[in-house]
C-alpha cells in the first residue's frame, strides 16, 4: 500500500461554508494529506466501513483521522462516533469532533463514546485555523497510530 494513501483525512461536514473554511484552515496549516469528504453521517459510515459506494475500499486501510461534525443529515455525528468506536476494526481511528455545539450534553456524550478530541468551532476564523492546525499536527504528525495487524 502506498504510504500517502493511508494518511487520508476523512472530513465529515454538511455545511458547504464550514467545509471550505476547514479545508482552507488545513491548507494554511500545511496539512496536505489527501482529504476525503463525506457530506452526511450515512456517507461517512459507508466510507469508514467500506459499504455501499465504498464497497471496494479496504477496511484495513482506515483514514488517519476523522474530523466529525455532530449535527449531520441522515445519521448524526454521535451515532457515527458510536459505530466507529464500537467496532474493533475501526475503534483505533482517532476521531476529532469539530462542531458548533457548546452544549454540555454533546461534550459529555462524545467523551463517553470515546472521542479523541472535541473542538468547538469558534466564530473567529484565525482561532479556528489555529485549532485545526494544532489538532492536525497532533493527530497526523505526532500521534503514532497503533500498528495494524497486516
Amino acid at each position, binding site marked *: 500500500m502506498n504510504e500517502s494513501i493511508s494518511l487520508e483525512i476523512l472530513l465529515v461536514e454538511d*455545511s458547504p*461554508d*464550514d467545509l471550505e*473554511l476547514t479545508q*482552507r484552515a488545513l491548507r494554511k496549516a500545511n496539512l496536505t494529506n489527501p482529504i476525503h469528504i463525506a457530506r452526511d453521517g450515512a456517507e461517512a459510515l459507508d466510507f469508514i466501513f467500506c459499504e455501499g459506494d465504498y464497497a471496494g475500499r479496504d477496511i484495513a486501510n482506515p483514514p488517519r483521522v476523522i474530523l466529525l461534525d455532530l*449535527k449531520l443529515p441522515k445519521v448524526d455525528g454521535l451515532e457515527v462516533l458510536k459505530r466507529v468506536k464500537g467496532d474493533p476494526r475501526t475503534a483505533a481511528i482517532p476521531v476529532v469532533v469539530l*462542531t*458548533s*455545539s*457548546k*452544549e*454540555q450534553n454533546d461534550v459529555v456524550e462524545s467523551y463517553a463514546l470515546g472521542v479523541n478530541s472535541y473542538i468547538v*468551532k*469558534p*466564530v*473567529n*476564523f*484565525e482561532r*479556528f485555523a489555529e485549532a485545526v492546525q494544532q489538532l492536525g499536527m497532533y493527530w497526523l504528525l505526532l500521534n503514532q497510530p497503533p500498528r495494524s495487524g497486516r
Partner: protein
Amino acid sequence: MKSGAPQATDTCAVGAALVLATGVIPGGTFPMPAGGVFLPTPFAVAGMALLLTLTILLIASRNRAVKFKRALADIDLAERKRIEATAAQLAAIVESSDDAIVGKDLQGIVTSWNAGAEKIFGYSAAEMVGQPISRLMPPERLHEEAKILGHIRRGESVPHFETVRRCKDGTLIDVSISVSAIRDSTGKIIGASKVARDITERKRAERDIRRFNVELEQRVAERTAQLEAVNAELRQRRSELESLFESLPGLYLVLTPDLTIVAASDAYLKATMTTREQIVGRGLFEVFPDNPDDLEATGAANLRASFDHVREDAAPHTMAIQKYSIRRPDGTFEERYWSPINSPVLGLEHKVKYIIHRVEDVTDFVLRKSSGDTLGLRARMQQMEAEIFLSAQRMQEVNRKLEFANKELEAFSYSVSHDLRAPLRAVDGFSQAVIEDFAAQLPEEGRRYLLTIRKGAQQMGALIDDLLAFSRLSRASMHKQEVRTGELVRSVLAELEPQREGRRIDVRIGELPACSGDPALLKQVWVNLLSNAFKYTRKRDPAVVEIGCEPTVEGDAFFVRDNGTGFDMRYADKLFGVFQRLHRAEDYEGTGVGLALVHRIVHRHGGLIWADAEVDRGATFYFTLEEKSPP
C-alpha cells in the same frame, strides 16, 4: 458200595450218566456191585453208550446256557449302573434344590422329602416320610388338599398355586405350589410330586409396596387437603381484604403502571357514578376522558403528568385541585373538582408495581366559593380553602407550562448554539479569506470594512455565547458545598493575568471567609466582577482593585471595589438587566450579559447583589450568598 435190589435200567442209566457227568451220586442210594467191579452186560453196554451221548449233549447245552446267562447279567449291570447314575443325579438335583420337592401318594401320604423341604418347613425327611402332607396345612386350608388330589387323580397338574403353609415351629409362610401327577410305567397315576417355593419375602415386599402406596396416597390426600385449606383461607382472606378495601370510606383506585384499573373502592365508584364491572380491567383515561365540550379541560393531562412523576420518582405525588368532570350514565358531563394523591406500590428492585390513586371530591368547596355564598365563619373558612385549592391548581398548571417551556428553551438554545454560529463563521472566515487572498487588490477602505464585518460577526458570536451561558445557568443544577473564597479568588486572579498585562494594577485582597455555594458558579461571579474591575479601570494608572468582605445592612457581604470609571447611580436599576449597558461600545467592549449572569447566580444562592458608584470615582459591587447571614 453195597449191592441191592436191581434198579430200573433207564433210571439206572440216567443215574449213571449223572454220576459220570457230575461225580455226584444222587440220594446216595445207587447200588454198587459186589466186589466193587461193575461188570458190563450187552444191554448195559448199549445203555451206557446212550447215556454217554446224552451226557455229552447235556453238558454242551449246559455250557451254552451258562455263557448266555452270564452275558445277560453283564448287560443288566451296565443298564442298572446307568439308570442308577441318572437317578443319583436327579436325586442330587432334587436334594440340592432350594425349593421343597415332595412326593406323595394319592392318599396324601408323603413318600419323599428333600433338603429344600426341610429348610422351608423345618421337618426332616424322617419326620415327614409316611406322614400325611396335611400336617403342613393350617386348619382353614385343609380343604385345599382334597382339591389338589382331585386334580391329580384326573391327571391335571396344579401350576403356581399360592397359599399358606405351617412350618414345624408353627409359623405360617407364603408358598407357591406346583403339583403334578406321578405315573407308573403303565401310565397309572400313583401319586403326586409337589414343588413348593417360599414366597414370604416376595409377599412381604408386595404387602410393603401396597402399604407404601396406601400411605403415599393417604399422604397425598392429606397434603392436598392442607393445600386446599390454605387456599381456601387465602381466598377467604383475599376476599376479606377485597371487601375491606372496597368498603374503605375514602375514594381509592388501584392502577397498574400502564394505568389499567385493578380495583376501586365502593366510595370511588359512587362518587364517579360507575360500577366495578364497568371500569376494572380498562384504562383509566378510557373510562374517564376529559369533557370534550370543555376546551380548557386539563384534568387528564395533569393526572397523566402526575402518574409520570410517580413512575419516574417511585414516590408519591400530591396534585393540586383538579377540575375533572365526570360523565353521567346518560353521557352528559357533571362538573367536579378533585384533590388527588398518587402513590406508588413498590415491588421488586424498587419498581413501581401499582399506583394507588386517592382522591377527595372537593366539588362542594369549590362550587360554594363560586356561588358567592358568604354565610358565617365556617363558610368563609371553606371558601378560603377552596380559593387556596384553586390557586394551587392554577399554579400547577403554570408549573406544567413552565416545565414545557423550559424543555423548549433547551431545544431552542441548542439550535441557537449550533445554527446561529455557523453563518457567523462563514461571514468571519470568508472576510478573512478575502483579506488574505486579495489584500493587494483592495483599497485601504475596503480592508477596513472587511475588518468591521469580522468584528461584527465576532461580537455577534460573543453575544450568542454569553446568552447561551445565561440561559444554561437557569437550567444547570446547583451543587452547594463549602468554598474557600480566598483560594477561589486567587485562582481567578491568576486566570485573568492576561487582562492585566502591561498595566499597573494594585490588587488588595482583604479577609475572605469561606462560604457555601456552587464552586463553578461562584467562580463565574468572581471572574465577571474582577474582569469588570480591570476593564473599567483601564484609564487609571495605577488602578486599584480591592477585594474583601465587610458588614453591610444586608449582613456581611463580599465586595469588589475599583477606582475606575464608575457609573451614574440613576441608572443603577439597569445594571443587572440582560444586554443592558451603561457605557458605549467603543469605550468599553461587552455584551451586557456579564452582570446579569452574576445577578442570577447570586439570586440562585439566595443572596443579594447591589452596587455603589459615582461617575469617574469608581464602583463597588457587593453580594451576599444567603439572606441576612454572614456569607
